[in-house]
């Protein structure tokens, strides 16, 4: 008896839908074992992770707030990945967008600046994210440098720049030497949707981005170009599509969305610029993109699920003293299983007898 992977004639749609669920199932099994090794009751740990956050309104709002940047970034990343352009540096583009947008907030602090401030911040955040993403894209197109490495390395540059600014020039004079800017003025803040709640306008924007992504990929010739260039590069060139142009375009879009997510996070839930504004949104969004099958609707669902793990992780830390890093372990294992289960879309398992003699026995 032997287990072999056999190529399917056509990609299986059922498995394409089911594979993320299998991956989640396998992850939960693995986590159960991990919790047991940590000496925690796995049932109650899983309950705290996945059920408790769904039981009260505050947590539900918080899930939406956390999902907002994840979904926004992941939509952009999915465009890159579909086009075979590997942007791993969304975290850096997120931070750059946050920094650039905050610049307007810091400079207009305490002035009579009007309602143009927030739109200008959002715009500048998106532009900065796009420009920052274009650095690895141009290096790739012009010099053939691996965008995987360059985009990842630029994350640390952005991180250190933000650190410098909030400890140096932009530090709040009344901030007791904490590395943070002053709280943004109301005109520089993303309005909340519910009085006194956490849910903010950015969540609506994220939904618009999902819809726009779905239309772009499903209905437009540009979306088609992006998909062909990734799926069959030579056929794309035969079709007259320019791969380099599409690398630049998808990097710019994903950078812009990451930058927009960054400034929304700063001008919304956080309210000021400080280090640690992101618990790794840019990296987690990679998992969201793949868990969501690089499909906008899938990404929306996957974003909400990963946001749940952030909230659940915080709950578990508070109530069960499980380290917050376990959340990252969880996300890493999940990505691993998602990629592994993806092979089932194009292949299937078959059990074969390993020796021809056995088969001949019937003869």
């Amino acid at each position, binding site marked *: 008896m032997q287990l072999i992977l056999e190529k399917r004639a056509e990609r299986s749609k059922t498995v394409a839908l089911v594979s993320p669920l299998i991956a989640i199932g396998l992850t939960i099994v693995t986590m159960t074992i991990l919790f047991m090794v940590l000496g925690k009751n796995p049932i109650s740990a899983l309950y705290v992770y996945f059920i408790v956050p769904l039981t009260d309104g505050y947590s539900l709002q918080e899930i939406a707030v956390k999902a907002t940047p994840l979904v926004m970034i992941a939509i952009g990343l999915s465009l890159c990945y579909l086009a075979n352009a590997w942007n791993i540096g969304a975290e850096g583009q997120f931070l750059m967008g946050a920094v650039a947008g905050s610049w307007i907030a810091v400079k207009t602090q305490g002035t009579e600046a009007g309602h143009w401030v927030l739109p200008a911040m959002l715009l500048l955040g998106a532009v900065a994210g796009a420009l920052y993403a274009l650095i690895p894209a141009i290096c790739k197109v012009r010099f053939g440098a691996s965008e995987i490495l360059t985009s990842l390395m630029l994350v640390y540059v952005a991180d250190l720049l933000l650190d410098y600014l909030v400890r140096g020039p932009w530090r709040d004079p009344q901030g007791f030497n904490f590395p943070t800017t002053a709280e943004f003025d109301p005109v520089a803040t993303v309005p909340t949707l519910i009085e006194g709640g956490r849910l903010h306008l950015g969540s609506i924007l994220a939904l618009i981005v999902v819809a726009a992504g779905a239309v772009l990929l499903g209905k*437009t010739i540009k979306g088609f170009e992006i998909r*062909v260039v990734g799926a*069959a590069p030579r056929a794309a060139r*035969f*079709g*007259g599509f320019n791969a380099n142009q599409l690398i630049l375009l998808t990097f710019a879009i994903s950078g812009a969305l990451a930058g927009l997510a960054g400034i929304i996070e700063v001008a919304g839930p956080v309210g000021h610029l400080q280090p640690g504004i992101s618990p790794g949104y840019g990296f987690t969004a990679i998992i969201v993109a793949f868990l969501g099958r690089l499909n906008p609707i899938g990404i929306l669902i996957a974003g909400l699920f990963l946001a749940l793990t952030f909230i659940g992780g915080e709950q578990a830390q508070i109530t069960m003293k499980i380290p917050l890093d376990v959340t990252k372990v969880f996300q890493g294992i999940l990505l691993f299983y998602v990629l592994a289960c993806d092979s089932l879309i194009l292949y299937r398992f078959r059990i074969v007898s390993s020796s021809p003699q056995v*088969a001949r026995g019937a003869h």
Partner: protein
Amino acid sequence: MRDTTSAAPRTSATPLLQTVGLTKRYGSFLANDKIDLDVWSQQIHALLGENGAGKSTLVKTIYGLVQPSEGELRWEGQTMVLSGPSQARARGIGMVFQHFSLFDNLTVAENVALGLDGKESFREMSARLEQVSRSYGLPLDPKREVWRLSVGERQRIEIVRALMQNPRFLILDEPTAVLTPQEADQLFVVLERLKSEGRAILYISHKLEEVKRLCDTATILRGGKKVSTCNPKAETAASLARMMVGTEIKEVKPAASRKITVPRLVINDLNLEPDDAHGVRLKGISLELRGGEILGIAGVAGNGQDELFAALSGERLASDPGTIVIEGIAAGHLSISRRRKLGAAFVPEERLGHGTAPRMRLSENALLTGHAAGNMVQHGFVNTAATLNAVDRATETFDVRKAKRDPEAASLSGGNLQKFIVGREILRNPAVLVVSQPTWGVDAGAAAVIRQALLDLAAGGAAVLVTSQDLDELIEISDRIAVMFHGHLSASLPTAEASREKLGLLMGGSSLETKEQAHAADT
């Protein structure tokens, strides 16, 4: 003298190799269905069949690459179980594959050494290589790198590699597909000699005239089953073809009258450096193709046909716009989409991955080449109804068989996908069609449909440029034939004057020397 018996002279009482009820199942698909085959020593045995008839599976089983699901192999009457090719080689079974497995950057001797199981030293092996290759009239320099060699010479490496194991049973998979007629003749001399040495040869081909000339026995497969074993010398090419296909092949008919009109595709002294180290440089290519004409380009693969296709399609741009003129407009600098808008259409050699995106639907693959002109794209949005309509029209006009209305390209058989691709381009009513290897690896029925479509397109006033390695195909459909060799294109000959011998000489580069000298004298 005419051979009246169905089998060749037998030197022993039992066949050297037999397959008995050999069956190979892939899932529910029967690749080989109870095949009985007897191959005797001192015999050249042809294995005939269309693509997908089960020839490859059968020879792979004999060579130990595939394990049979049922049935058995017998070697000199004894049951034989092969768990891999090395066991087959140890028995004395050798195989020359259609697709060479050679490392371009290694020398001939290094390549041969990699394929041998023996323990002799590299120097001994090199000496033996030279000796074997010389004694069979297949001269090879062991120290030359493979990328410097012609396709015919590369095949020699594969044959010599097989011969160095001193096989008693040699399998050759379509060995003449890449050879000029003269090179094929040389190969036949070698095969006759191997036969006279008492070896058995299993010869896979779909060139029927060649089989009639060379082979003593022929076994015909169709749909995984054995149809018959016969003496090919006693059959006609038409009767062999009928057994292979199962039905009568439709004759391809050129239109009664065709108007030759204005020049629609002109190439003026096109020179192009290759974009990779092992590519071919295009040297001074010129031609003029008028509406209503079909020009065939013959030549052994790898003589610049791919590079010419890329230059014509615009996948590679020429520095001088005037070198390629489409419909009277200088197009050398234009992208493939702009050239399509001028009325040009292209069908590349590779169906999957070049002509289509394999994992995308047919409607999306219609959009791939249809987006530049027509109504498939409006204000940046894809008109799905129009793309589906294109699929339906191609399906109907060219009899594309598929499981559902809009499947993935990769799920179609080679012949049906090729019909779709050719149909997709022809239904755009092109003024110029450039097509490379239109019927490569396509079943005979589909090939006839495609050739007829090209003839009809020309009859409708379009200019058609066909590159093919199949001389019979070019002679059948072209008005004129030119030959590519080492990046040069010969002057074209009217098909009536283009004998196989003349074309074969040009394919081997013979008359180009004199032309080059004349050119040198001019300047």
